[in-house]
């Protein structure tokens, strides 16, 4: 559906060149929700803008639905953009137009006749749940409602791909969830391919099928969301995963427990899918002569399934602890010993 081959984007600055995107290869499948996560300045914003030709790559090739976006220009590019629409962090609605007029705007651009625009706009307003607000101006709407208008506007010309540029970053958590639900719903109902960029792992966890992690212009890690959550490889990925699995309080509590219990062994267990339901812990405690202190436990829901993580402090003699860790390994539980500083 979408294919990026060796995509590079450099910006010329007064004091040299900045490589915003550095030799990125990606393939995004039809109908999937693909997330790109990174901190600001990682190049994800530039990357997503190359999917609809708002930015041209310095090198490499971008193909969307068979159309080489990195090459086309003029009328062909404008035509192609109608099928690759975009929503934005700050919504970017025209304040001079009402909700209905904003949604009609892309239809006007596409040359749809007025008589045909009206029923289509009504249908879109119903789809995003804004009935009754047709004649309101954006200044009279809440952030979540504005993004709904943005989504309706993006869907007006029946696109194949929806690009989301930090679409929930300006919204509060509750509104974020309702917008993410709407995106999931649209993805399923219209079989729309969605590419989103974000710096919030929560967004990835909630709706994405696959994720790519970007750092300094490069994709450093990529895979199914569940897989990445269960065993993040890169330090930056671990940081992102800990956004949703660890709160700062717990980190502090662990630090305190480490200093209070100098002789324990801290381990982190990762459970995936059905494993979360199995009584491994009970068997661990029964089978070995050690004390087990649970410092933290949580279960998270991702699009692909459930995963959980537990942090334990094992106390007892060294051999018993080693055997216990060995037991966990043999049970197929992902076990990581947390190093002491």
């Amino acid at each position: 559906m979408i294919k990026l081959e060796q995509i590079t984007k450099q910006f010329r600055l007064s004091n040299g060149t900045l490589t915003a995107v550095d030799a990125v290869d990606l393939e995004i499948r039809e109908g999937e929700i693909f997330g790109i996560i990174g901190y600001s300045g990682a190049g994800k914003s530039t990357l997503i803008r190359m999917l609809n030709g708002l930015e041209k790559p310095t090198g490499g090739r971008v193909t969307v639905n068979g159309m080489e976006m990195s090459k086309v220009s003029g009328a062909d590019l404008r035509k192609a953009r109608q099928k690759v629409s975009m929503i934005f962090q700050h919504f970017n609605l025209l304040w001079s137009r009402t909700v209905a007029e904003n949604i009609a705007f892309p239809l006007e651009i596409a040359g749809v006749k007025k008589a045909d625009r009206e029923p289509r706009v009504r249908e879109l307003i119903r789809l995003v749940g804004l009935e009754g607000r047709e004649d309101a101006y954006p200044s009279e709407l809440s952030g979540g409602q504005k993004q709904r208008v943005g989504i309706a506007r993006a869907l007006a010309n029946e696109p194949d791909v929806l690009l989301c540029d930090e679409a929930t970053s300006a919204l509060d958590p509750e509104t974020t969830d309702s917008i993410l639900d709407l995106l999931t719903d649209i993805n399923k109902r219209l079989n729309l391919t969605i590419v989103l960029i974000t710096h919030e792992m929560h967004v990835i966890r909630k709706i994405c099928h696959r994720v790519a992690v970007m750092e300094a212009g490069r994709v450093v890690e990529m895979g199914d969301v569940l897989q990445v959550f269960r065993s993040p490889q890169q330090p930056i990925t671990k940081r992102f995963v800990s956004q949703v699995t660890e709160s700062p309080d717990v980190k502090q509590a662990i630090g305190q427990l480490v200093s209070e219990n100098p002789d324990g062994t801290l381990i982190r267990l990762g459970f995936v899918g059905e494993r979360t339901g199995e009584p491994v812990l009970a068997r661990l405690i029964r089978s070995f002569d050690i004390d087990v202190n649970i410092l933290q436990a949580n279960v998270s829901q991702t699009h692909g399934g459930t995963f959980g993580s537990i942090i334990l402090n094992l106390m007892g003699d060294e051999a018993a602890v080693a055997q216990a860790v060995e037991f966990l390994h043999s049970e197929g539980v992902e076990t990581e010993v947390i190093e002491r500083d």
Partner: protein
Amino acid sequence: MIEQLFPNVDWEKMWEATLETLYMTAVATVFTFLIGLVLGILLFLTGPKGIYQNRISNLITAAFVNIFRSIPFIILIILLIPLTKFLLGSIRGPNAALPALIIGSAPFYGRMVQIALAEIDKGVIEAARSMGATTWTIIRKVLLPESMPALISGITVTAIALVGYTAMAGIIGAGGLGNLAYLDGFQRSRTDVTMVATILILIIVFAIQWIGDILVKRTDKR
């Protein structure tokens, strides 16, 4: 009562002069609006970070704007006498003032248009581009409507400046209230004529400001 206060005022002449001032201001404002829009849009689109970055046309437009904005109006009128003669065949009457009025104020308004356009949220322009809009569509459906309140308050200020310019143009024989105040009021020492002409000019200025404020309020949905 009125005749006692203003013994020298010929009300018929005064009315005629008022109409001439209104005529000059209205026609000049319309042309200033249109030419200023073209200049402002050109400056905006070809400027740095514009959609059609083009150093050369930006420099030419900016030079034109800066030169004609800098020439004092009274000098501009004199400089433009040959052009006015060529265009209208005469340098007397309200029409004769129009070339100088328009050329003097359009560059000024052009700068205001450029500033108004620069205030538009860049994200909105990007959104329109992402939908496949042409530059012409962006101008018509994004740039102009989204900057309309600023464009209107700009043309209000310009129209009021034009009222002042018409008074100056009056001195070289273009007619209007300025002409009347100068010839009948000042040169013949009839202070009451000058007073009445001044009051009428004030009323025109207040009316323009009032209309401008209403239009700004009506178009601003932010």
